[in-house]
């Protein structure tokens, strides 16, 4: 292991102090990323901590492979989530991982609370506490990014992490925006920043990471680079981006539409990856160290309402999840309208996915008369009505009045207050991702440690099973997803993008680590993945989580998937098996 990785930069916002801790113990055991962050969370987050209190730590961690191997492009954040009240974990691309690693640290931990708004400028291994009062309350997160870009050094090898108004006002699903258009998106890291009066963190990297075995490293790098650039995945995600999923999911009837009242539009949606690429695509971007460039920017050209021949040009980053949440879930007909909604959540710093599901719930609840215009402040949400949704997004971010304040806590809180739990699409308090593929997806959403589709990717397993006509038992499904989630803990400890999961099998990872002077056998890696997953589960149990009795939204089991309706009892049996695996009674580790 190089000398920089085990260094943990600690920051106390209350006392405006920083120091460096050497933690080879953590990095030798857990590699980096998620494997280290979960241990720091166990250490530093007191049991029962208020997620918006000064005691909640913000932990950012990178791993040994960042940015030394292709697609080792991600950074991991851990914290206690103000949205679910439990484990907060979010991954981000952009330059976050490269900057933190080349700043000479394996992890950054921020605790305490500043009395006045500040931002952290981390250059040459030192932390400056800079006044952010002039940035606080700015209407657009994009402006914050531009100002910091112009005022801070380190261009070309830095990350600019910042929050928008939603984070300042503690919307529980506010995000942190990195560079432009990448995010620590889910579970409310933006609100944790806001609660600490922390507007932004700028990190620049200038160190050289020594490589113990350069010939071996260079040879393996070239092999992985060639495999990555020649792969189908490269073509698929480079050409259309993650938006390429919209069309096939729609075709098989797995794209949630109008709060999952349907799983399809009468015709093809206007915002498939193909249509967006043809009509709107303006530029592709990559995360540092990744050849794929899956980030797709649309150019939205809008005529000025008053001035003839005057156009406003906006760049909007689109991905599958925002297109689902702010597109199909809201029954949007026009691609331009979907792009406008995505731009609005970017400006305010809201998680796109959660915001879309919240608006979908609110639309259905309004139609059913659970509340009226008195609560909504005169707005009448209806499917496909972009103008109303834009105004609702603004009010959620501003936290205007009781109704929008509650919407700013997600559908679990909103349905507890106004009713409509049966169609409040959340799992463990986190809003549903854009895949209604079958029992695998539902089990991932329920049992995944972040309640994210990416935890164990049941949506992929469902599609494979559908093609093969295979129907696993609940116990088989639980075991397969447990293994997948455990495997992914290693990727998120290195930290490699999940898109590269096919590239980085345990043997390849073992070889890559060896070139960096870290000896781990494939078997050891497999076991470590299980251990990290169980440590995450242990944190959740410590904070009051129970898989047994976890609410399953009625809508999710009523709406047919491509393989039919999923029985609740099937999911309960799978959850019991999953609990057994996570508790470690099976001897797998």
């Amino acid at each position: 292991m190089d000398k920089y990785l085990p260094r943990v930069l600690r920051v106390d916002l209350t006392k405006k102090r920083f120091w460096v801790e050497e933690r080879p113990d953590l990095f030798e055991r857990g590699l980096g990323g998620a494997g280290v962050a979960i241990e720091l969370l166990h250490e530093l987050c007191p049991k029962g901590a208020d997620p918006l209190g000064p005691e909640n730590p913000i932990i950012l961690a990178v791993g040994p492979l960042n940015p030394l191997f292709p697609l080792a492009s991600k950074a991991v954040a851990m914290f206690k989530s103000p949205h679910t009240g439990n484990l907060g974990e979010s991954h981000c691309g952009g330059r976050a991982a490269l900057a933190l690693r080349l700043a000479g640290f394996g992890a950054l931990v921020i605790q305490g609370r500043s009395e006045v708004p500040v931002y952290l400028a981390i250059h040459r291994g030192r932390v400056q506490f800079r006044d952010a009062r002039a940035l606080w309350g700015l209407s657009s997160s994009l402006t914050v990014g531009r100002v910091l870009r112009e005022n801070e050094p380190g261009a070309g090898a830095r990350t600019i992490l910042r929050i928008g108004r939603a984070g300042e006002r503690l919307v529980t699903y506010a995000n942190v925006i990195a560079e432009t258009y990448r995010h620590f998106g889910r579970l409310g890291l933006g609100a944790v920043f806001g609660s600490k009066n922390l507007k932004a963190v700028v990190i620049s990297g200038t160190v050289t990471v020594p490589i113990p075995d350069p010939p071996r490293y260079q040879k393996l790098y070239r092999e992985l680079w060639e495999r990555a650039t020649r792969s189908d995945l490269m073509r698929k995600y480079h050409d259309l981006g993650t938006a390429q999923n919209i069309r096939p999911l729609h075709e098989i009837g797995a794209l949630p539409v109008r709060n999952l009242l349907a799983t399809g539009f009468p015709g093809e949606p206007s915002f498939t990856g193909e249509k967006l690429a043809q009509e709107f695509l303006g530029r592709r971007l990559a995360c540092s160290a990744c050849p794929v460039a899956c980030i797709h920017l649309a150019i939205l050209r809008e005529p000025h309402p008053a001035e003839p021949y005057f156009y406003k040009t906006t760049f909007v980053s689109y991905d599958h999840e925002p297109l689902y949440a702010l597109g199909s879930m809201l029954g949007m007909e026009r691609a331009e309208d979907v792009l406008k909604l995505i731009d609005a959540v970017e400006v305010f710093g809201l998680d796109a996915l959660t915001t879309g599901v919240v608006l979908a719930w609110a639309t259905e609840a309004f139609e059913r008369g659970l509340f009226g215009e008195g609560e909504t402040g005169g707005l009448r949400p209806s499917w496909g009505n972009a103008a109303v949704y834009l105004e609702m997004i603004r009010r959620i971010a501003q936290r205007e009045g009781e109704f929008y304040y509650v919407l700013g806590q997600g559908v679990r809180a909103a349905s507890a207050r106004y009713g409509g739990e049966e169609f409040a699409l959340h799992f463990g308090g986190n809003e549903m991702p854009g895949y209604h593929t079958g029992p695998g997806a539902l089990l991932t959403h329920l049992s995944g440690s972040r309640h994210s589709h990416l935890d164990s990717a049941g949506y992929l397993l469902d599609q494979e099973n559908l093609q093969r006509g295979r129907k696993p038992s609940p116990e088989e499904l639980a075991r397969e997803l447990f293994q997948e989630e455990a495997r992914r803990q290693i990727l998120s400890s290195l930290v490699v993008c999940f898109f590269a999961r096919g590239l980085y099998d345990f043997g390849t990872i073992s070889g890559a680590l060896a070139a960096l002077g870290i000896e781990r056998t494939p078997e050891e890696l497999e076991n470590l993945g299980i251990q990290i997953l169980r440590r995450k589960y242990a944190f959740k149990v410590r904070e009051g989580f129970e898989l047994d009795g976890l609410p399953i939204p009625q809508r999710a089991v009523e709406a047919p998937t491509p393989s039919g309706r999923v029985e609740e009892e099937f999911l309960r049996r799978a959850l019991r098996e999953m609990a057994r695996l996570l508790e470690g009674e099976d001897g797998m580790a």
Partner: protein
Amino acid sequence: MPKRLAVVDPGRCVDCLLCALACSRRFGEGGLARSAVAVRSVGGVEHGFVVIVCRACPDPPCAASCPVGAITKAAVGVRVQPERCIGCRTCVLSCPFGAVHWDEEQNKPVICVHCGLCASFCPHGVLALEEVEGG
């Protein structure tokens, strides 16, 4: 025929930094500190990128400006003789492209030697080695 590194299609640059990271690997190192090639956005990522690297001037100002003769013209581009360099950074100021990069650890300039390693790792055809006219 000698070849120089050329930025042939900057419009396709996606800011992946694989060129800059490849340059560091020449020395068996990870990172960007000793990379002779850098990527910058043109006032925000929306507007695209510039790849900042030595263009192999026929009459290089960096060589002309060096007070101790540590930079000399080569068949393509220039060569730095670090043992002569006094770290004054005059060469950095002399280059209008900002293509004289600086190794902060060694306090010496880093200038592209036109080996083409970065181009071989550019996934999107932004960089290429091309023959120098009349070279």
